[in-house]
């Protein structure tokens, strides 16, 4: 792909990145950071390509080390995020009712 197309895609991705997280409540900051952390583990794709084209044993060794690191980032990241989010379920009232419940709870207090 030519440089100009890559640049276009990069700039658009910056705006999507800004837009998609700009309204997250602080409650979900930690899972969001952890989820984003898992996503950059996709460097695994790059590590696989480099390892798959390695001819020299030293290059292969370093590339395989990169594959191990990237896999740890990718797999560990998604698993730990899932564990965190698992805890946001199973409460007495389903979270989908939160918005409906909230105003009433405030009035009671006044």
């Amino acid at each position: 792909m030519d440089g100009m197309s890559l640049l276009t895609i990069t700039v658009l991705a910056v705006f999507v990145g800004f837009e998609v997280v700009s309204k997250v409540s602080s409650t979900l900051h930690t899972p969001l950071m952890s989820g984003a952390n898992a996503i950059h583990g996709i460097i695994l794709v790059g590590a696989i390509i480099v390892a798959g084209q390695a001819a020299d044993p030293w290059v292969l060794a370093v590339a395989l080390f990169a594959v191990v690191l990237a896999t740890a980032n990718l797999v560990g990241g998604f698993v730990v995020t899932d564990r965190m989010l698992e805890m946001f379920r199973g409460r007495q009232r389903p979270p989908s009712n939160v918005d409906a419940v909230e105003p009433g709870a405030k009035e009671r207090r006044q």
Partner: protein
Amino acid sequence: MTLLNPTWTALLYLAAAACFILALKGLNSPRTARRGNLIGAFGALLAVVTVFVSVKLDNIPWILGAIVVGSGVAAPVARRVHMTQMPQLVALFNGVGGGAAALVALLELPHTGDAWVRVAIVFTLLVGAVSFAGSGVTFAKLQGLMTTRPVTFPGLPALMALVLLAAVGAGVMVILNGWLALALVLLVLGLVSGILLVLPVGGADVPIVISLLNAFTGLAVAASGLVLGNVLLVVAGTLVGASGTILTRAMAAAMGRSVAGIMFGAFKGGSTAGSTAVSERPVRSSSAEDVAVLLGYAQRVIIVPGYGLAVAQGQHTAAELALALEARGIDVDFAIHPVAGRMPGHMNVLLAEANVPYESLKEMSEINSEFKTTDVALVVGANDVVNPAAKTTSGSPIYGMPILEVADARQVVFLKRSMRPGFAGIENELLYEPQTTLLFGDAKDSLTKVLGAVKGL
């Protein structure tokens, strides 16, 4: 085996990129967050399968073996880690991702003759190495392997400038000549700058640094995508870089600091240096029974949990206490400071783990005005986030950080381990105020005793 043609490959990568965007979007709301994360994981799986069927790869058994090793190490750790230790695990995963990006860039250097590609390689090398080493130091600080206080020495700024200057010089030479040996030097310089960058950061600011390094790794991955001409890496890395930047700013704003101030002016003038001294002034300490009476006959109680609660694994007991008080007709809420715990939103995760209903967890902006009408504010293992010095003492390292206004409550009860200052290392004047009562001890033990006493009322 015939390889997938470029059009299909591009389409599959596009689908994976869309999955990542949906994942981040899903993480916006507690209802869709878990599904969002699973969509992200599916996108990653799709991308990894795609690379195997679309690129001519040698050494496939070795690669599969390395993937098994990586998953075999990371998945059990991620599954078993205590939620209190999760911030350092996230730091660790972030670091290894940055390290992987740097290695990929290093290995691609001999394969390119294009100076522009070498610009991206130099960027990935440096930023990936900074992220790797910086995350390592962050991990050590959070895991308690080293002091959480800012580490500075007289020549630090000069050394930092020197290392950066050397890195720029080496970077330019690598871009112009493509020397592999010099790229290794650059890698080392990146590692050193990562360490020097994080050492002077004080404990309370560590979460912001994790978030910043997360954004750094994202950018390194995006640049490695430019090196390999892989659009998926470019999109995914840029998404993380951009969202990580926004998140870092949001976290810094919650602490009333600027990101630049944290990284370069960290607690300026070393004002935390002398704060290890514990004051000898009198405080009012009390028994669990007295605290139970205060709580049991109140109408409105707000519980302010901090890291001490998490360390003591007392979140379940705190949740039980809230239930016991509610059974007596008392209005109980949890006030969550944005940086309570060790990461933004960390406390929410810990309390959610203890089955505290989502709607009892109030954000700072929502609850601060309610302390005035509160009978008892129960501060469990928190200190800096309720320290009035943030509002009154302009010389204080935490000056300007928004705090929970517990001082407005009629009574303030601190469950504290000792009189030692909090993570930021600053004395809390509120402890000496007449409306304040202290109950010393491990947060979980104290809560258990108070809970027993409340039930016996």
